[in-house]
């Protein structure tokens, strides 16, 4: 099974799941009582958040392996995860903002989950800025790994402290018992499908980015060998 075949397959799977999810979000699931049509954005907002946090963990894990084993492939994975995760993290903030305006009348609310996501976004941004500044070097990879690890251990404390700081994330939906508020089983199904679709999309984009970085690494190695060969030829 060739790499290209795998990527194509992943793309098709992601595409198919996304189509199903879109259908379910816009056609299948019933409109929620309190918030109206806008509430449907929830089915995009939550999966993006899930992906953003998972990707962040991936950056840290890749960082640990890079520092431990010293193999460039781990750094390529971490960097790809950071870039891809950043996209989804931005989407969380954007969808959150779009959702907030009609419901709570403001473009931004400092509720605990959005705040935590904002911090995550800033950490991602810092990581990417650091990598851009350090350039294509072993030092950049090392610094990135360290920052990724430190940021990841920071996130749990951020979650706890922000939650203590703010009272409750405004209840997702009107509920009788105060659970996560999804009464209708169709809503649960839609959320799960959307989650699967976004996860597949994330994996596909991550693979694309990862492969590009691997090619870049190989290109660098080849350029170096070429330079060495040229220098050797000039010696004679």
């Amino acid at each position: 099974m060739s790499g290209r075949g795998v990527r194509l397959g992943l793309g098709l799977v992601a595409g198919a799941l996304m189509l199903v999810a879109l259908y379910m979000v816009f056609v299948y699931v019933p409109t929620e009582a309190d918030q109206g049509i806008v509430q449907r954005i929830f089915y995009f907002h939550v999966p993006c958040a899930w992906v953003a946090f998972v990707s962040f963990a991936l950056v840290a894990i890749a960082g640990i392996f890079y520092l431990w084993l010293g193999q460039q492939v781990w750094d390529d994975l971490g960097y790809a995860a950071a870039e891809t995760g950043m996209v989804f993290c931005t989407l969380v903030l954007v969808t959150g903002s779009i959702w907030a305006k009609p419901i709570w009348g403001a473009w931004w609310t400092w509720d605990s989950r959005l705040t935590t996501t904002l911090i995550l976004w800033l950490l991602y941004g810092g990581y990417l800025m650091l990598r851009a500044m350090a350039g294509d070097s072993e030092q950049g990879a090392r610094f990135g790994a360290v920052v990724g690890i430190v940021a990841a251990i920071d996130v749990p404390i951020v979650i706890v402290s922000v939650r203590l700081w703010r009272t409750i994330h405004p209840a997702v939906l009107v509920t009788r018992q105060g659970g996560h508020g999804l009464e209708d089983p169709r809503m649960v199904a839609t959320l799960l499908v959307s989650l699967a679709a976004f996860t597949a999309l994330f994996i596909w984009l991550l693979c694309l980015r990862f492969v590009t970085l691997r090619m870049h690494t190989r290109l660098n190695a080849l350029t170096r060998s070429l330079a060495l060969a040229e220098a050797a030829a000039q010696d004679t």
Partner: protein
Amino acid sequence: MTAALIETRVLGKSFGPTPILRDVNLSVEAGHGAAVVGANGAGKSTLIRLLAGLSAPSLGAAMLFGEPARSLRPELRRRVGLLSHQSFLYPNLTARENLEFYATLYGVDDARATAIEWLERVALGAVADSRVHGFSRGMEQRLALARAMLVRPDVLMLDEPFAALDADGAALATELVRDAMDRGCAVLASAHSASALAELGFAILTLSRGRLVRAEPSTTRSAARPPLARQQVS
């Protein structure tokens, strides 16, 4: 057969695509010295940095005491000295405080006494309690020399050691290096020209565009000594 204290094997270093060092093979045994000469940009400083463990090789190995220089154990790092055009001195500390600090860092037994002894040795006893930022360049270099030598290194690396020394300083440096080599220290020095170092009995290695292109064995070490620094030139 004495194991080489300083050794490189097929050592290469590239910054990005640009090769700075290529296929460098050298070894220096205890009591011997090698001088690496070449024009600016030939790669001398990079070679020293790789052997000092400050930078990692792109290819091959840079070794001290038979171990990779980059990950040298603390017990071995204690036995390595570096003299560079940077003085490694704190301008706002006195000469004595600088030496005492490094002596303590290197676990020298009586830091106080050692500092005083070396200050005398480099003729800076009179200014022991003056701050370094008031020193002339020559005085600073002599103090830097004391700093490098007081730990009694078994491996000594000199990065253009005579560049800033005046005549007295150069004579002092030559004497100290000779004493160290008599003690069994292995020395690797980089310089623009070989004259002063040839006098010390160093083997001369010429580095050009990152490769060792010529090697002249030492001529002045006495017959009692075992074979000299070996080097391969491809």
